[in-house]
């Protein structure tokens, strides 16, 4: 099935000839029309360093994605033991030792900011490497192309198969391919829902038809979207649906490493004839290998293009050719605009400058946000109180001439065990505190990992009634470990 071996050299020539592939860069600038129907791309298999790197990244990302929900993390008796869990009903997010409550979603904001800045940083360093290696769209498309190649053969075999009239062979191959795609799609959807419930339980429930409807529908939707995006639409998603290609232009500069073709070395391109003297010609032999492997259907020799995802497969393809014809590698390579210009003006090239204003600023921002998050995470209280002063009525006059204010106090116990608290006030003379439904103000019980609400009245005798308003503090103390939280609020009296 593997067609790569066809691109081989007659044993006689030391500088082997390389077959020119008859391929059109379907997304070539001149052909790129918004109104044109899609032309199918048949990416040829590439081999080489970057292809290997891509396999590795794919293996790593998929492994993380599929395995992560199965990791366990012991949090004690009152909490789930799944290392990564988004618990919607209980409104908690667990991530190893971190546990995030709804009012702490700013951690999520922080993570998103770090992710965005990270993307900026990596883009300013090496262009769209996110797109080329780690983007889920790329990873799954790559996986789907691999399946396709496995079932239908490489580029030319696939083209031939598609041209064939319907036959048992064709139908069989196509069905196997689509079935495998659907299976992968299903595994994708399946893995996703495990992040939202106890994975082992959910797996059993899924197969015994006990799982909630939303689990099945999520699997169905994700199966469909993976199948359609990864199997059918592929480069269309990157080119037409994804906003990122439009944004990246603003993030790369002349020092960014960009997959590019050295036209000073390659042009004018011409087919290679045996025993031709290299001193008389340029290095590109116009074999179109770089075009044939491109999953985006472009010709890198046309220069920077919006479609290019910097997957570097064209580098692999061309380097293989260069090896075969015994020319220096990296006619296509990760290179900077600076170097392209220096070569054009005959200057020596220089190492890419990794440390420059842009990358320093991004790194500094990432560290700042990261440290800030870490600091808040480490100093985070396991006790939170929230005080609501009654607005209606603002205060109540008592028969002895004193004044009483009502408060709703919410105590958030973030520990995984029941705790008892004591409420006291500070900064209000002769205040009498009572908690509705409790004798006294001590031993107020808050269940593990829960929020409890108490109605609290504070009364002051006539002599101490403040004129208008007075600030004071509520002090909530854990009766057992002495942990306390102090929150300020106001006491209202009549304006005298």
């Amino acid at each position, binding site marked *: 099935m593997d067609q790569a071996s066809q691109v081989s050299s007659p044993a006689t020539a030391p500088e082997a000839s390389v077959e020119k592939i008859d391929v059109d860069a379907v997304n070539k600038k001149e052909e790129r029309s918004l*109104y044109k129907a899609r032309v199918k791309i048949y990416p040829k298999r590439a081999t080489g360093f970057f292809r290997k790197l891509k396999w590795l990244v794919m293996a790593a990302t998929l492994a993380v994605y599929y395995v992560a929900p199965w990791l366990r993390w012991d949090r004690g008796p009152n909490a789930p033991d799944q290392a990564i869990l988004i618990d919607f009903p209980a409104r908690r997010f667990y991530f190893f030792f971190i546990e995030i409550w709804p009012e702490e979603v700013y951690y999520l904001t922080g993570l998103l900011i770090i992710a965005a800045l990270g993307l900026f940083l990596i883009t300013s360093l090496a262009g769209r490497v996110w797109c080329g290696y780690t983007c889920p769209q790329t990873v799954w498309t790559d996986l789907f192309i691999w399946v396709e190649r496995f079932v239908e053969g490489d580029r030319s075999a696939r083209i031939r198969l598609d041209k064939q009239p319907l036959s048992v062979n064709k139908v069989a191959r196509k069905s196997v391919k689509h079935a495998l795609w659907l299976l992968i799609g299903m595994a994708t959807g399946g893995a996703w829902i495990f992040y939202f419930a106890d994975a082992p339980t959910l797996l059993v429930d899924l197969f015994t038809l006990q799982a909630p409807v939303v689990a099945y529908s999520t699997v169905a939707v994700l199966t469909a979207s993976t199948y359609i995006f990864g199997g059918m639409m592929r480069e269309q998603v990157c080119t037409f649906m994804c906003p990122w290609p439009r944004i990246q232009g603003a993030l790369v500069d002349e020092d960014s490493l960009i997959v590019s073709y050295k036209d000073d070395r390659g042009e004018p391109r011409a087919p290679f004839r045996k025993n031709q003297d290299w001193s008389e010609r340029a290095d590109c032999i116009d074999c179109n290998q770089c075009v044939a492997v491109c999953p985006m259907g472009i010709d890198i020799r046309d220069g920077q293009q919006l479609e290019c995802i910097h997957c570097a497969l064209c580098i692999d393809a061309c380097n293989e050719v260069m090896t075969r014809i015994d020319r220096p590698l990296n006619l296509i390579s990760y290179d900077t605009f600076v170097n392209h210009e220096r070569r054009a003006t005959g200057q020596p090239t220089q190492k890419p400058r990794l440390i420059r204003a842009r990358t320093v600023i991004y790194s500094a921002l990432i560290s700042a946000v990261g440290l800030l998050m870490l600091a808040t995470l480490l100093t985070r209280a396991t006790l939170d109180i929230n005080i609501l002063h*009654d*607005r*209606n*009525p603002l205060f*109540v*006059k*008592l*028969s*002895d*001439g004193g004044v*009483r204010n*009502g408060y709703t106090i919410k105590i958030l116990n973030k520990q995984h065990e029941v705790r008892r608290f004591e409420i006291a006030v500070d900064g209000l003379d002769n205040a009498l505190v009572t908690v*509705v*439904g409790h004798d006294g103000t001590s031993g107020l019980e808050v269940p593990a990992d829960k929020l409890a609400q108490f*109605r609290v*009245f504070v009364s002051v005798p*006539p002599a101490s009634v403040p004129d208008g308003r007075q600030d004071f503090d509520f002090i909530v103390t854990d009766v057992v470990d002495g942990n306390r939280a102090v929150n300020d609020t106001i006491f209202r009296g009549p304006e005298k």
Partner: protein
Amino acid sequence: MAHNAEKDAVTGVETTGHEWDGIKELNNPLPRWWLWTFYITVLWSIGYWVVYPAWPLVSSYTEGMFGYSSRQEVMDRIAEAKEAQSEYLGKIETASLDEIRGDSELLNFALAGGRSAFAVNCSQCHGQGAQGFVGYPNLNDDAWIWGGKPDEIMTTILYGIRSDHDDTRYSEMPAFGRDGLLERPQINEVVEYVLQISGQDHDSGMATAGKDVFVEQCAACHGENGEGIRETGAPRLTDSIWLYGGDRDTLRATVTNARYGVMPAWTGRLDEATIKQLAVYVHSLGGGE
């Protein structure tokens, strides 16, 4: 089409003849998938007419195949909610007020129900926060004309004050001035006395004279020392809470013309469970005894 078929030089596509600021619109057909989406929505809407109520007729409407009605759906949901509450409501109906207050689950339910019933039925007079207005008692404070224990509160809710219910209660303060029971100077004296016992600025000479008037005319209802008597619904006069106001002028008006507040009887208008929830809620406002 009326316009001449002009072709765009760059794309070779016909223009529609529309032009804005020199920009001409190309006559491109809709993408096919868009067109199909449109056709499908049209078909969908026809299916919708068949299945659901859709077209208004002169005096009715097309009812659809399954007789669906959003009004009915709301009714069903309400019935469902009632059904879900019925367990608690049943318990509340049979439990005593103390039992309700002793069971935290039942208490929470009763407080929530009481709050909403209060907002609907009571807040018009007593205020949204039960803070009261002049003539309408504040239910948050610790002064109760007819008693602030849960049962007493419930009695007041059940039968009201001066309502049309047979078991209702009256506080019958005479209009001392209007009916000529007291002379104007006597009224002024007794007002000074009330100012004195409630700890306000007063003329002590007049107050001393007023004390005699008070003992003779007022003590029967308001108590020997003005401490109030709940059976007669006569408020305590020695504290700093006043239903109509405790200043000299207001007191004088009160003694002269008397006050007759009213409260409707809720028995018969609200069911037993609701009234119990209301009593528990009002008691919980902070002043309950």
